[in-house]
């Protein structure tokens, strides 16, 4: 088996393990259905224990998936003898590795295992599509990518992507819980989640962490563009959407300081923000031709 094949095997294995983890977390939510968090009869306790078991299983599967995933990304870098984010397949797998690491740190050390369901969904779909649709064989880089900014710009993009996605997951969960609570007290898994205020605070932290890094990502891209193309900003579709994402998240931060926009309003803006981010990555890469097209996709 070549190193490149090992890498592909790692990504496929990770996709399968993440899918299993997603199923475990689904079972975790299902097991909590209709369960009041305060009930303490023996039946409820047994069901509570079952919720916990499914949750742990999901987390453990995600850890195994992350090991396979990490192997896949590192092996890809070794096979290509460069940073493993030169095309869409590599960028998806590498950026999702940042997502899973961020999630595992939060889940293991900061009690945020409740992010498991949306995160494993993202990980399994992302790695699954990478392995099946986006996969391309290892190849060297085009000259435009021969730059130190290839590392700086993209690592920053990966870190902010991970934080934006984690923040969006928290905002979506916030919206679900807020909707349930507006219809009366929430029950089931939603009732086991932290309170709305805490969810909102967590989402804010994730976004507040990501926003300066995203700003830096765009700035670093702009410096690189000055070196490579002789202009620091040219409204290339990729640049335009990076700007749109930046502005939407700026609106998110302003919304949290504006009466009437806190809470749900801000959470919706966060969802719009992550949608623009994904459109930039998927839509612009596949639908629109621009300067950020390398190696087919």
């Amino acid at each position, binding site marked *: 088996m070549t190193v490149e094949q090992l890498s592909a095997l790692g990504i496929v294995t990770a996709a399968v393990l993440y899918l299993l983890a997603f199923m475990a977390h689904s079972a975790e939510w299902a097991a909590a259905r209709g369960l009041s968090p305060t009930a303490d009869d023996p039946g409820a306790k047994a069901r509570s224990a079952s919720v916990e078991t499914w949750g742990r299983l999901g987390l453990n599967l995600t850890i195994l998936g992350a090991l396979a995933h990490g192997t896949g990304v590192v092996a890809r870098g070794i096979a290509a003898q460069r940073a493993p984010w030169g095309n869409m397949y590599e960028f998806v797998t590498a950026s999702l590795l940042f997502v899973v690491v961020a999630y595992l740190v939060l889940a293991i050390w900061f009690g945020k295992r409740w992010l498991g369901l949306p995160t494993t969904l993202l990980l399994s779909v992302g790695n699954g599509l990478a392995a099946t649709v986006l996969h391309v064989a290892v190849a060297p880089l085009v000259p435009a990518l021969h730059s130190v900014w290839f590392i700086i710009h993209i690592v920053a993009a990966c870190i902010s992507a991970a934080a934006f996605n984690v923040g969006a997951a928290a905002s979506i969960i916030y919206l679900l819980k807020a909707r349930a609570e507006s219809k009366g007290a929430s029950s089931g898994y939603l009732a086991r989640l932290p309170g709305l205020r805490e969810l909102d605070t967590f989402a804010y932290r994730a976004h507040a962490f990501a926003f300066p890094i995203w700003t830096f990502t765009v700035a670093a891209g702009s410096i690189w563009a000055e070196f490579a193309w*002789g202009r620091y900003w040219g409204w290339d579709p990729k640049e335009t959407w990076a700007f749109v994402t930046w502005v939407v998240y700026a609106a998110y931060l302003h919304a949290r300081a504006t009466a009437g926009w806190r809470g749900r309003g801000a959470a919706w803006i966060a969802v719009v923000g992550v949608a623009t981010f994904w459109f930039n990555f998927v839509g612009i890469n596949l639908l629109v031709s621009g300067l950020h097209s390398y190696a087919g996709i």
Partner: protein
Amino acid sequence: MSTVEPPPESEARDYGAREMARWVWTQLTSMRTALVLLFLVALAAIPGSLIPQRSASLLRVRDFRAAHPTLDRIYTPLGLYDVYRSPWFSAIYLLLFVSLIGCILPRIAVYARGVRKPPPRVPRRLDRLGEYASGVVDGDGEDALDKADEWLRSKHFRVVRSDDGISAERGYLRELGNLLFHLALIFVLIGVAVSQLMGFKGTSVIVEGQGFSNNITQYDDFKAGGWVDTDRLKPFTVKLNTFTVRFETGEVQRGAAREFTADVALTVDGATTNQVLQVNHPLNVGGTLVHLLGHGYAAHVTVTDGSGQVAYSGPAVTVPQDGNFSSLTVIKVPDARPDRLVFQGYFLPTAVVDEQGPRSIFPDALNPQLFLTAWYGAPVVSTGVPENLYTFNPEGLTQVMNGDQPVRFALKPGETVDLPDGRGSLTFDGYSRWTKLQISSTPGLPLTMGGVAVAVLGLCLSLFVRPRRLWIRTIERPDGSLGLEAAGLDRADARTGLSDDVADLVAAAGVRAEPTSEETP
């Protein structure tokens, strides 16, 4: 006679106008308006990413307009081919900046006053604040406060002691960062404006062996701001010695570029040095940058006219049409006699002829061939009106025919074709490469990039610095013993660790905090 004069009408109108202006200003600088403008600018930017833009490619705009005449009737008046220079886009971002300035100026004044003020006095009822702790002091009250004072200073609090106790505050940098960020954005915009007014950008195509002098006449296209003196461009010369290009020949990404290297001789102030010009590594000639933007092939041909004279000899730049460099070729021979000649067709670096016709299947020159047709016409007097060398216009020309078939020929390097009826001949001598150089100056760039750097720094301060106020004082407890109470208040959203700080402060004063009777919400 005494009459009561009515108030002058103008004054009343002034008052109304002033009120109106104030109302507009208040609306414009409100956070809600800023939010709306942010959404608007994001929305307004989107069409430019989906509709072809003149700034990116005139050709694609032309093709789009031809293909979608109905949409074009809507797009053209709205300026949708030039979104980022359209009045409505400019209006939105300028309003956003007015709103930003209106928001920031008063806050700067507030901050300038507030930053010099000592931390606020100890509130009368500390136990009503969010975080509260109290305990019994074993020894001397002043000693305990001294220790608390020391702890607060070690944590970079600004500390004020009074008879009431100790007030402490930290996190002044948060608002500073916020203000810096917004001010920096203004400088980013000023930098962009400076680059627009004082910068220039142009391109020139140079064939191997030829050179470029930085002179307005030598540019193929040139755009400069209003404040640029185009007669005083930095004088230098770039000669292209060789251009090396390497393409992927393996299975994966076959034909993708792997290397572009231009070996150039740069002459500045009479001194010539050899330099290597690559993508990502522009030449910097005293602030004027030379970038390698593109490349292609030049076909070397010799044309002999009907009178037996050599009417043209040299490279003709061809224009690549696809990734495999099938390149449009137009060779104009205005000096040919008795008729001027024009050859039109393709240069194919790796030529094949199949059911799709002649085309190139690889970007490198593995099997270079010229596929041409020939045209002739009466000589024309040079009018001095600039003519595009790379496009073919059949006006006033007749195609060279062989019987009733147009003459078409394919040539390999070294081959010659004779035109029928003694109209002349063309020899394909070989090929060389050309590079497209961009020569530009962006004087506002340091301001823009400096602004961005300060903005990121300000952003980090404004998002990560935690402003916090803490108070501590001695009290007489209900049982008559000496006690100590402390409380804290966070001045920014979504911060944690306040309860830890209050507990640590009390502990630092040497007091073990007692559990509060009621849990704070």
